[in-house]
């Protein structure tokens, strides 16, 4: 029962041949960030941008929970409440969760595959700098006549056709966000396929790189479909087309089909990079190689492919034929198989490993428990007769927050704590990191676990008021939301404190981590890395 000692395939050559790497560093001042083409700078920009969006979206969530603290209308009119739920969803999905993983991709992919930078460095800069404009459009929509769109983040017709000018800003924001994602994805695919170090075969790539390769393909295939859907909404609004207008022969249900054809792959666009991060963190803290590497790759690919044929499980109640419902029900359940493969592989990686529970590992374990719980409620919702009961209730809200927050967000936290020492050369405060984890975990469950009960009791989502009988659970949920919001201030403090005056990190902060950035590069990583590509044996 001795601990497995992992033997590295890679030569240990810290800093060899890297003396020349530091000959030109970054520019000084603000223009460094505007004009940068360095993948690490752009990664940092993505990460800070997504934190800013996470804060704005989080404030909106706190607003929503404030209104729901008590029955009746307290602080806002229902229109504004709807605008908050819509913008919270859009900002968190497109502004926080997607960019945070693009940030990780920028920092990590070139270092993990031994490339000097991304394939298209200047395009990379542009992909990022599209985002602040899109975010500005989204936030500006609040100040338009009629306010921001209050249609839900899914932007369903026919409401979208009837909204004020804020809707147009949102449509353009979605266009710009989509463009940014597609350009970023093309860049990532090209980098991974064409710029790997000699000897770094596809099946030797760290799993984080694999999940991003597959995610990038999903983005290239799915984002343009969303762009098409909102373009149709735009022309319905202003140019007399009737794609979704029943009077002109269109059909609002058509919008739902097109949206969810994008929307379901989008769910995995959000989840897969998180799976990748977890697949790096768990082996590192188990001091064992990842169990079932090849099956992980195949499972990820299977999830991606099946994700294109399950979209209508979001719309069981539109009146589709029972054959259609059955097809989408079984297809959805099949996705649980490759997802289960991944979960079992992570658990098997930990099995008999010499485990330690530093903050990244805590978040990874939190991910494993909570994401699996969210996966199970997803299976419950996949069952047609149950879903018809649960449709648009808080059960659905609880389900997707378990996979998005406890899944994607926890994975992002795990990644930040995992790589922060490598990026900054400084160690974060372990005690505060653990506090951040436990507070987040407890408050997260306080918010969302009780929402399962509310949903099963029939409380509908997206409504600012509720009957008295729902008050207790809503109060608990709201208190959890305030707590979770405050806990993220602690995260900001931990990160800033690490960057400013953290203890110098050791050369290999995690001895179990063995991808190229840990074994071949000094800590902190220099501004330019792998200008001479390493040879992977």
């Amino acid at each position, binding site marked *: 029962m001795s601990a497995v000692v992992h033997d590295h395939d890679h030569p240990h050559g810290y800093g060899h041949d890297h003396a020349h790497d530091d000959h030109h560093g970054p520019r000084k001042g603000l223009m460094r960030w505007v004009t940068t083409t360095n993948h690490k700078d752009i990664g940092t920009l993505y990460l800070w941008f997504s934190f800013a969006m996470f804060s704005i979206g989080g404030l909106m969530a706190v607003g929503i929970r404030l209104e729901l603290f008590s029955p009746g209308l307290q602080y806002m009119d229902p229109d504004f409440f709807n605008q908050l739920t819509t913008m919270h969803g859009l900002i968190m999905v497109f502004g926080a969760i997607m960019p945070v993983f693009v940030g990780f991709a920028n920092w990590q992919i070139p270092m993990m595959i031994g*490339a000097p930078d991304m*394939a*298209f460095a200047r395009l990379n800069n542009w992909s990022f700098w599209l985002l602040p404009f899109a975010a500005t459009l989204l936030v500006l929509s609040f100040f338009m006549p009629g306010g921001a769109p209050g249609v839900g983040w899914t932007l369903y017709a026919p409401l979208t056709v009837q909204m004020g000018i804020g809707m147009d800003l949102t449509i353009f924001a979605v266009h710009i966000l989509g463009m940014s994602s*597609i350009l970023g*994805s*093309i*860049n990532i*695919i*090209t980098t991974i*396929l*064409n*710029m790997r170090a000699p000897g770094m075969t596809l099946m030797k790539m760290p799993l984080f790189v694999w999940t991003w390769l597959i995610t990038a393909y999903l983005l*290239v*295939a*799915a*984002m*343009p*479909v*969303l*762009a*098409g*859907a909102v*373009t*149709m909404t735009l022309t319905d609004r202003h140019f*007399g087309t*009737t*794609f979704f*207008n*029943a*009077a*002109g*022969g269109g*059909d609002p*249900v*058509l919008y739902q*089909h*097109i949206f969810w*054809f994008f929307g379901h792959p989008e769910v995995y666009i959000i989840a897969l990079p998180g799976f990748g991060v977890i697949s790096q963190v768990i082996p590192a803290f188990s001091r064992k190689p990842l169990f079932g590497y090849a099956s992980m790759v195949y499972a990820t690919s299977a999830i991606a492919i099946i994700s294109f044929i399950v979209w209508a499980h979001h719309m069981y109640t539109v*009146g*589709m*034929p029972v054959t259609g419902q059955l097809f989408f029900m079984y297809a959805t359940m099949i996705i649980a198989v490759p997802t289960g493969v991944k979960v079992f592989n992570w658990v098997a990686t930990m099995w008999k490993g010499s485990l330690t529970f530093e903050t990244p590992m805590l978040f990874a374990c939190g991910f494993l428990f909570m994401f699996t719980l969210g996966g199970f409620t997803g299976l419950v919702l996949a069952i047609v007769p149950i879903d018809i009961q649960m449709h648009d209730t808080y059960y659905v809200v609880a389900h997707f927050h378990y996979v998005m927050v406890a899944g994607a967000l926890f994975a992002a936290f795990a990644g930040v704590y995992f790589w922060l020492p490598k990026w900054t050369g400084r160690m974060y405060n372990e005690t505060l990191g653990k506090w951040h984890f436990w507070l987040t975990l407890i408050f997260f469950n306080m918010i969302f676990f009780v929402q399962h009960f509310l949903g099963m009791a029939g409380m509908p989502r997206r409504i600012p008021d509720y009957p008295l009988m729902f008050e207790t659970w809503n109060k608990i949920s709201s208190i959890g939301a305030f707590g979770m919001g405050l806990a993220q201030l602690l995260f900001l403090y931990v990160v800033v404190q690490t960057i400013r005056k953290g203890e110098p990190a050791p050369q290999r902060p995690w001895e179990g981590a063995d991808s190229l950035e840990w074994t071949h590069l000094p800590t902190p990583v220099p501004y330019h890395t792998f200008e001479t590509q390493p040879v992977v044996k």
Partner: protein
Amino acid sequence: MSAKENRSLSFRLGVVALGMFGFAFALVPFYNQICAALGINQIERAAETVNTQVDTSRTITIELDSNAHNLPWRFKPVVSEIKVHPGELAVVEYEIVNARDAAVTGQAVPSYGPQHAGQYFQKIECFCFTQQTLAPGETRRMPVLFVVDPKLPKDVNTIAVSYTFFEVPGRGGKT
């Protein structure tokens, strides 16, 4: 990892992205074809007339409702409720008045409660099959000729039929 290979790969991926943008639009005719092939959602098509036995043992209440969505039209059924036997040919009339001093074109879209009763409410003639253009101030009476399919499930005794008139954009009479 030459720049040329990178450019060629990115070009091919760009074509895929553009293709998927087009695919979103291709879903529109595809959706309509699927619906037509499966007979789903064919609200603008007359039911095929078949000789059916009138089932006098059951009486179905048809409740009629009307809405004019954002249209300056007065639109209401002449009677709000009738009783029919399944298989029996029945006619109801709706009255519509254009209160605007301009010609307006609208299209009525039916909906049913309960939802699944829609497929048993077979319209042989309906003003909802075509767009209606009303001159300023015009009043029009329009019929719905229908048969309730005797295969209507036994637990349905009442069907609510609701028509909503939507303005067809770009056909004159803009507000």
